[in-house]
């Protein structure tokens, strides 16, 4: 019976539930995107960029969002991190863990037959780097601690570099050139994938103590960009961070009133940016959705009141046939909640569509969360019930004699 009434006035019905549709669309789209980001961050981002359970010591922050001239000048005055700093820490750290050094620069890598690849992330790193980043080899092997300490000219390349320079031939044992120096390929990295659309396979990793020393740091030898400390358990991250901070403050002879002249980052810290966005979204979202739904409820209530007036005679007929007040009440309540529920379903479809559209056009990932769909349907039906109560009550209270006389 309710569906018949809705089918009769399709266009009016659509406009009636527009509020619900809009509110639910927003709800679903935003939550789908947030959940997508959360999943991505947990599973991909953290591990890929920072490695799990790591604390990274740097001279300057890795992600800069709002820095002014003053901050840049302060950073420029900071002392550089050196190989010796790493040795200092390794000798003194009580929190268990592994230390790795790395410096990255962007440059050109030359291969056989005059081929070259641009924009390669040329990385000078210690042997422990592969372990800290959980990097596996697809072919060959990583270099050992001995080879790294002696600065041998060996290199591990990423898949993109391998396929561009060697085109399907086995690169192991072949020679490539970085900054003019020859390096022997001993391993190819397993496919790393993309991060926000950027390929992580366009890399070349060689011992930091090789000829890369100085090249990757703009001419300065013995200097390192990142000292990374990996702890065996996430519970130890806080302790490790605190300990590194105190050792480095001692090493840099800082007085208690002076701020740190280095940065310590964990995966969780540097995601503060995402956290900020996320919090704003989660705050704004209920507001937006709430407003749409309230507007929607008011619209539904008014349209239902009009409907009750139009159908006064019909209500009189039903009552004369034996409909009780509760029969009429339930009939109209069911109509308004079905209408609103259908609006929510439409909103879910639109919301998911919108989220996937955004995913296709930008690096933002999407993940439809079941709980949000359930919430959307519940909200839709709820709005229908709440807004339909008054009109349904009015309908139920009609005097059958008076109603039968209507138009």
């Amino acid at each position, binding site marked *: 019976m309710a569906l*018949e*009434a809705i089918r*009769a006035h399709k266009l009016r019905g659509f406009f009636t539930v527009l509020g619900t549709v809009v509110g639910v669309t927003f709800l679903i789209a935003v939550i789908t995107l947030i959940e997508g980001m959360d999943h991505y961050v947990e599973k991909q981002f953290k591990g890929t960029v920072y490695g799990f359970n790591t604390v990274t010591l740097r001279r300057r922050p890795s992600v800069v969002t709002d820095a002014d001239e003053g901050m840049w000048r302060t950073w420029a005055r900071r002392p550089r991190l050196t190989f010796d700093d790493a040795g200092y820490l390794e000798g003194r750290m009580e929190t268990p863990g592994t230390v790795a050094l790395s410096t990255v620069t962007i440059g050109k890598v030359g291969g056989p037959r005059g081929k070259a690849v641009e924009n390669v992330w040329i990385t000078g790193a210690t042997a422990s780097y592969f372990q800290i980043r959980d990097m596996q080899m697809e072919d060959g092997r990583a270099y050992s601690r001995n080879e790294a300490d002696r600065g041998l000219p060996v290199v591990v390349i990423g898949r993109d570099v391998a396929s561009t320079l060697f085109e399907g031939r086995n690169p192991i044992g072949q020679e490539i050139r970085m900054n003019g120096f020859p390096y022997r390929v001993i391993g190819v990295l397993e496919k790393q994938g993309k991060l926000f659309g950027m390929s992580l396979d366009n890399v070349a990793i060689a011992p930091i103590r090789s000829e890369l020393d100085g090249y990757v740091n703009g001419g300065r030898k013995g200097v390192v960009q990142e000292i990374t400390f990996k702890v065996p358990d996430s519970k130890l991250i806080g302790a490790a961070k605190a300990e590194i901070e105190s050792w480095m403050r001692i090493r840099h002879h800082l007085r208690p009133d002076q701020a740190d002249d280095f940065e310590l980052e964990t995966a969780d810290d540097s995601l503060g940016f995402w956290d900020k966005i996320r919090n704003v979204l989660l705050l704004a979202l209920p507001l937006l959705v709430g407003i749409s739904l309230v507007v929607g409820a008011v619209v539904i209530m008014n349209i239902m009141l009009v409907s009750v007036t139009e159908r006064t*005679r*019909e209500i*009189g*007929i*039903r*009552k*004369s*046939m*034996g*409909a*009780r*007040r*509760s*029969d009429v009440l339930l009939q109209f309540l069911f109509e308004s909640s079905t209408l609103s529920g259908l609006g929510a379903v439409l909103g879910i479809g639109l919301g998911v569509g919108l989220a996937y559209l955004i995913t296709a056009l930008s690096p933002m990932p999407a993940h439809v969360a079941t709980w949000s769909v359930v919430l959307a349907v519940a909200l839709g039906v709820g709005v229908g019930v709440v807004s339909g109560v008054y009109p349904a009550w009015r309908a139920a209270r009609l005097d*059958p*004699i008076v109603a*039968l006389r209507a138009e």
Partner: protein
Amino acid sequence: MSSGAGGAALIDVRGLEKHYQMGAETVRALRGVDLVIHRNEYVAIMGPSGSGKSTFMNLIGCLDSPTAGEYILNGNHVAGMDDDELARVRNQEIGFVFQTFNLLPRSTALENVELPLVYGGVGGKDRKRRALEALQAVELGDRVDHRPNELSGGQRQRVAIARALVTRPSIILADEPTGNLDSRTSEEIMNLFERLHREGQTIIMVTHEPDIAAHADRVVTLRDGKIESDQPQPRPRRVVEAPVLAGA
């Protein structure tokens, strides 16, 4: 005085009164009506406007409650009932037939006839079967899926009559059932009522037309809120047939 089938009274009205408040004034639409109607009677209720006949019909039909007096319908003491109880009585005991048909415009004939059964709690298959039987009884078995706007006036009234019959009520209560029909169709409908009466139905028909009232066994006339006269009409009785004109 009542005539007719005898036995226990189906309708027993005593001292029925209905007053309305119109602003500061009290309008006494019914001022004490006593009436007894037995099963299988065919009663016409007449009276000029303002006589209280519509009010009386509403009370008989349990659409309203009296201000004073008693009304016992098939053993039910209706006068003191609340809304829900009245609804149940309407559903089980009364079959309404209105002047303006009052069918649900968006429903088919079958769905319209099913309506009282829906409120009476009769389930799907049973409901459909009974509705079909009722429609067949009024000779509309071939139009069950039509909507009211696809039916003629006479057919619509037949659907309404089928709807009135479907719950096997104690009384058929008809309010000017031929008021919106032409004379030929009116006759068909009145013949249908006669057939239903012969088959055992109790019919109460409210009308202001003597021609229509002439079909009944008994005519009760109201004036100024009271019964003015209550006369049997001798049976058998045939209404003077309208001459069938060629091409009419």
